[in-house]
């Protein structure tokens, strides 16, 4: 038997807007993978991995060169929806150190256009320890604000209130009719890890040891659906085989 729609999570309707609290701050996960912090009018995204396609091409595997354009289009749409005062990229915004130099002129222009209307903060990641500043915005190792620390990779013994990326979390939920896997937010109220935003960024199962180790008391996920974000407890997840 087939469910009617060949799309993720067709049959459960979200109960209104989903909110996640981290250290008491109300945050809104979006289906595109961005996180909206209404209290600070800040939009947060993780792991854009711009120019990942061309990085592979340089090594001889000619993947489509459209990933940067696709990622920036989605980012521009998220910005247009929320009109944030500030945009924070949580590191690995560029796939490698040479990635910014490979940006097409259109991509450069798109970034400059976005940066002109808001305060852009590039947090350094392991792929891009020194993201370029000439495109607009500021580069920071991490950002602390109003009870939250925003950094690239979760710190093992961080105090409550941390937002990070790096792991590209993905989860698989067992619904009665079928199982669905998708990118997701994963958190425990003390820390939250964002899904990768980049078009070519892969995923890591939230049930894998490195992610589990960060949430010793368990966690829940917010799975990205097509139209909404859906919350599931740890217990509903199954491993991505």
């Amino acid at each position: 038997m087939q469910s009617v729609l060949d799309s993720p999570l067709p049959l459960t309707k979200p109960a209104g807007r989903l909110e996640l609290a981290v250290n008491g701050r109300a945050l809104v996960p979006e289906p595109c993978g961005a996180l909206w912090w209404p209290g600070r009018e800040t939009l947060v995204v993780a792991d854009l991995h711009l120019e990942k396609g061309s990085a592979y091409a340089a090594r001889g595997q000619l993947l489509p060169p459209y990933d940067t354009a696709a990622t920036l289009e989605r980012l521009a749409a998220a910005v247009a929806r929320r009109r944030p005062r500030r945009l924070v990229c949580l590191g690995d915004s560029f796939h490698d150190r040479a990635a910014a130099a490979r940006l097409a002129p259109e991509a450069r222009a798109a970034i400059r256009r976005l940066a002109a209307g808001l305060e852009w903060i590039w947090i350094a990641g392991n792929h891009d320890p020194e993201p370029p500043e000439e495109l607009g915005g500021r580069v920071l190792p991490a950002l602390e604000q109003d009870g939250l620390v925003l950094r690239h990779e979760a710190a093992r013994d961080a105090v409550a209130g941390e937002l990070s990326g790096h792991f590209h979390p993905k989860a698989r939920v067992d619904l009665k009719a079928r199982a669905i896997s998708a990118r997701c937010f994963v958190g425990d109220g003390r820390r939250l890890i964002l899904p990768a935003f980049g078009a070519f960024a892969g995923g890591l199962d939230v049930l894998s040891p490195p992610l589990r180790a960060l949430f010793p008391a368990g966690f829940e996920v917010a799975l990205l659906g097509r139209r909404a974000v859906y919350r599931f407890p740890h217990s509903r997840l199954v491993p991505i085989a």
Partner: protein
Amino acid sequence: MAEAAAQASLPPAFAAWFEAHGWAPHPHQLAMLAAAEAGRAALLIAPTGGGKTLAGFMPSLVELAGQPAEAPRGLHTLYVSPLKALAVDIERNLMAPLRDLELDIAVETRTGDTPQAKRQRQRKTPPEILLTTPESLALLLSYHDAPEIFAGLRSVVVDELHALAGGKRGDLLALGLSRLQALAPGLRRVGLSATVHDPARLVAWLSPSGRADDAAVETVVGRGGVRPEIEILTTEQRLPWSGHMALHALEEVYRRIRASGVTLVFVNTRAQAELVFQELWRLNEEALPIALHHGSLAVEQRRRVEAAMARGSLRAVVATSSLDLGIDWAGVDLVVQVGAPKGVSRLLQRLGRANHRLDAPSRCLLVPANRFEVLECRAARDGVEAMTLDGEPPRAGGLDVLAQHILGMACSAPLDAGALYAEVTRAAPYAGLARRDFDDALQFVATGGYALRTYERFRRLVQDRAGRWRVASPQHVKRYRMNLGVIVEAPTLKVRLGRGRRLGEVEEYFVQGLVPGDTFVFAGQLLRFEAVRETDVIVSKAAAGQEPKVPAYVGGRLPLSTHLADRVRAMLEDDGSWPGLPDQVGEWLRLQRRRSVLPPAEGLLVETFPRGGKQFLVAYSFEGRNAHQTLGMLLTRRMERAGLGPLGFVATDYVIAVWSLQPARDVAGLFDQDMLGDDLEEWMAESTLLKRTFRNVAVIAGLIERRAPGQQKSGRQVTFSADLIYDVLRKHQPDHLLLRATRADAAGGLTDIGRLAAMLARVQGKILHRPLDRVSPLAVPVLLEIGREQVAGSALDDLLDAAAAELIAEATGEAPGGGAS
């Protein structure tokens, strides 16, 4: 066609060899010899048995035997088979006559399993006869010394041509033959094939020009064997309404095994194989040696079964299509087909596995698992009697395969685009290839073929001053060789018992549906799923008496052929053909005529009726499961838009059933051909089937690598990144070469869009809509399929039959309908 037109004379030594064994050469063997003497290509079409392989080799042996001892030696004949194991077997069969005739002819195999040192030696000093596969040939042709290796090649023999032509491996081989012909213009082509619907297609494939009217090809038709005896098992028990396991009939099957020498029991899916095997052993009081053979079992285990079969130490083997082709066994005197055969050609192929003596009939028992399958078995038997075979619509060669070939040719030597284009279009699958498509494939290989020309500096092919294309770096050559081939396996995981023995492999998606503690039958044992560790599925033996969760493999499930579907439709319409049917089936059809109407041979019957608070729509389109699955996806989209609130659908080989909140009134509008426009496009964006098709295309074309130097990507990683690429590419360059190749593949295969399109066109204006107040007798089987995935275990068919009682009562009007009327 000339049947042994010009009889060639057999050299005395060969004639004596036949005589010494008490044999006479078959006329088609002599005809093949005559064709060789005339220097003509030859296509031999003959049923299994009758010395087909020897007929292919004999001209080469005769020529080699006639050469003076001091003549320079080199590669004379290349034999290409789709099966690695077969090449090994033929080496044995060929060695015997060579020894008897005391011929000093070197025969060697070359496959992916051949050791590196031997492969290198074979390039320097090739044997006179080399047995190989399409992939190994492609690899040889990519070496810079290919011109020297093949310069003296006289003959190429392609075995099982019917299985190769029409698929991507056939495309790859056809391109390889074109290159061989350029390297050795005097090369003579020989094709060996089973009986086929359309010999002209194979003539085109085999000809050096790629054309069906090529006079260079002589067609030799071997004498057909005695007409096979096909019996359809009629059961005294109640014939199931639904289900595919035919467990009701296995006691009878066991009795037949006991009464026969050696029996091959063919089934359609691996899940069926496991269940039938289990059930036969439950009944096996005499402990007859009965074995199991299917494509998921560990190779060693399959080889053991084949060896035991060859020794004659087995009484029966339960097998899937894994045994459709392959080594000939003497002594098989009964073929049992459990479940409907799905196609006339497939049935012929399978029953050809029994009795290889031409003068005695093959015996075959068809075991229908449900009522529709009774009709299908009847249609298949009629088809075999009339010898009307299934014809597949011809398909153009894959652009992904072409891209792989172009890179391979560039690896061998700098290439001239015009010359390679001319060479490629002499291969039949590419005879109609437009120069633009060729240039796009070349561009794809060079720079990825993207509209955004940012990869100029990363190009894999560069043009020299003469305008010839050469590989930019040796690493591309290395990568090509590591990733060559067109068989893309579904990602699989190894099934391992604890830390110990490997039992075989299962598709990843099957494992994804398991939770620890689930039990399933595999390799003839009841196993308990424990965990996935890297690429291993860890299992333990389950306690006896537990209910298994049956693997629901999609693989191996062929859809009903168009030809067989036509026969079933004709049979339904013509009640004059019913008397031969079992009483239960005849009664069922008469009831359908009373309560509704029988599906017409032309046009399309669509019934609608309410049931259990839902509105059902059942279309009797008989286009096979794959096309119906696609139809279901598209129909529900349209019903969604029309506000009918579709809830789900189920597709069988025969019908599609959709249920919704609101009844469908404008049925003709629902089935309008325009569903192949936007609805199809929209669905293609999301369909996992299309993504899987794209992944295969991307792997073959070399965009995604199976193996990179120094690392083995797991199947899972490949699947994941392919999905991301598909989404981005579809949005930014929908006419990219690989998306064009994906769409071409989607016309057949798992989505079967081509067949769906033909059906929609055929029934326009001929849709017969029957609104009913309750379920019709013919709709009962498909309604029983609903939700069957949730029911597990060997008692499945019993459960379904219990559920059927209620539905049948409703359909026949013996009891008040479930809330209807």
